[in-house]
């Protein structure tokens, strides 16, 4: 990883659908160099995939989300890893993080509605023997996701000419 790789990651994280030629221009590299560097980072699993950033509320279909905090009993030898891998298998879990503080894990859960989510937590997550406690925080409205704001913001105005 050098400064150009870092720049490429920034460019791709912001918009991975850009034409190869555009990415090459922004990074001041040739197209071949971009291809090589990106494949190397894919091989190294620095780049894990490419996705769209979607405002699901606006898409209209029933969507609900919650942050669920979990207290967990770590297991001998494997610590938190085994239980983490079990929880991560559920498609409803879109992120799973080991956190500091009162709780051990923070998971983000999505579903079609609140009932979906509460049922998932009470029937699938809470009963696991290593889970000691759950705290579900329902999302009521989302203003910013993945670094992108989800509302219209008025931009400031500049003079058309200035020195």
């Amino acid at each position: 990883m050098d400064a150009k790789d870092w720049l490429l990651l920034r460019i791709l994280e912001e918009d991975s659908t850009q034409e190869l030629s555009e990415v090459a221009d922004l990074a001041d590299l040739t197209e071949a160099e971009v291809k090589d560097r990106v494949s190397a980072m894919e091989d190294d699993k620095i780049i894990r995939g490419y996705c769209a950033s979607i405002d699901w509320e606006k898409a209209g279909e029933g969507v609900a989300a919650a942050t669920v905090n979990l207290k967990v009993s770590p297991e001998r030898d494997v610590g938190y890893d085994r239980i983490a891998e079990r929880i991560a298998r559920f498609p409803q879990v879109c992120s799973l993080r080991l956190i500091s503080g009162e709780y051990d894990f923070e998971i983000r859960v999505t579903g079609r509605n609140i009932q979906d989510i509460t049922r998932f937590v009470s029937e699938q997550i809470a009963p696991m023997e290593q889970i000691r406690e759950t705290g579900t925080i329902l999302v009521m409205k989302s203003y910013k996701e993945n670094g992108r704001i989800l509302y219209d913001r008025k931009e400031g105005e500049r003079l058309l000419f200035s020195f």
Partner: protein
Amino acid sequence: MMRDFISARTRTIPPSGIRRFFDIVQEMDDVISLGVGEPDYATPWVACEAGIASVEQGQTSYTSNRGLPELRTETSRYLAKRFGVHYHPEDEMLITTGASEALDIAIRAVTDPGDEILIADPSYVSYSPGVMLSDGVPVRVPCLMEDEFRLTPDALMEKITPKSKAVICNFPNNPTGGVMSREDYRGIAEVICDHDLLLISDEIYTEMTYDGEMTSAVQADGLQERTILINGFSKAYAMTGWRVAYLCAPKELCDAALKIHQYVMLSAPTMSQYAAVGALKNADLDREEMVTEYQMRRNLFVRGLNRIGLTCHLPRGAFYAFPSVKEFGISDVEFAERLLMEQHVAVVPGSVFGPSGAGHLRCAYAVSREDLREAIRRIEAFTTSL
């Protein structure tokens, strides 16, 4: 009949070179303006919060003439951290209402009638009128494209006379995007010291240095004791509207500038000074984001220009590209005017910034990537029609 009340001195100041363009542009609705000399980012929110909090807490009075002690301390720390240079916040630093004021009082503090003030050319538009308002004589020192628009010792030497008093330079440069390395500064330091000159160094774009190390003139041996260093928040922290900057100089020079500042300005806007403290303390990340974005836009735009046949050196700082249009057989003014009328792309003719700028265009790439791509398309359409 009334007398003409306008002073002779004011009458010697030529009118702005872009007034006409400004009038034309007002009438158009799909203009892409590469004529804007300020960031297109909003001020980092941490800085805004600090400004807002100061107002909420009723900090709405004057500050000391020199500026908020906390801002001077933070600025001194910043200069030490970023450049390894040391200025005492008590008596070697002054908070001003923009670099514009700092330039004005610096020039006035040192210029006597008839003094020749050497200006690296092309230059930011305020230097020469500033000198003329003090009855000084602006003397332009060419910085050429073949030198990547740096100020060279030879060019400087050539313009020095017994009347020379000071040099004004600005790197990274508006309008060329040229920068000076430490080595480059050492070269001119020798000439400046040998001829016992003062340096006024406007370093407002230093944070926008892209390919190499960020530099300050005062890093060169012997220069700090004879330099008035000017920097500020307008560009690095996208704070043009807040009007806050600073001037650093050895005590005697700083006191002289302070004398003027206390009468003409009293103090810089208070809430802006608080916002600037917030910027210095907490906005590194915002600044780095913006600078990285500008670096990418520069790559994109300069490649585009060269691809369509406008020769452009790679500007290593600020947010301006300064392509040559000499191959097209029309002047920079005509090029800019027709480009605006025919393709609705606004740029500033290089000659507005001084004779060495003739034959070039100043294109500010602090606009969206999308606009830059569209601008390249329109400029190409224009040049193929020539």
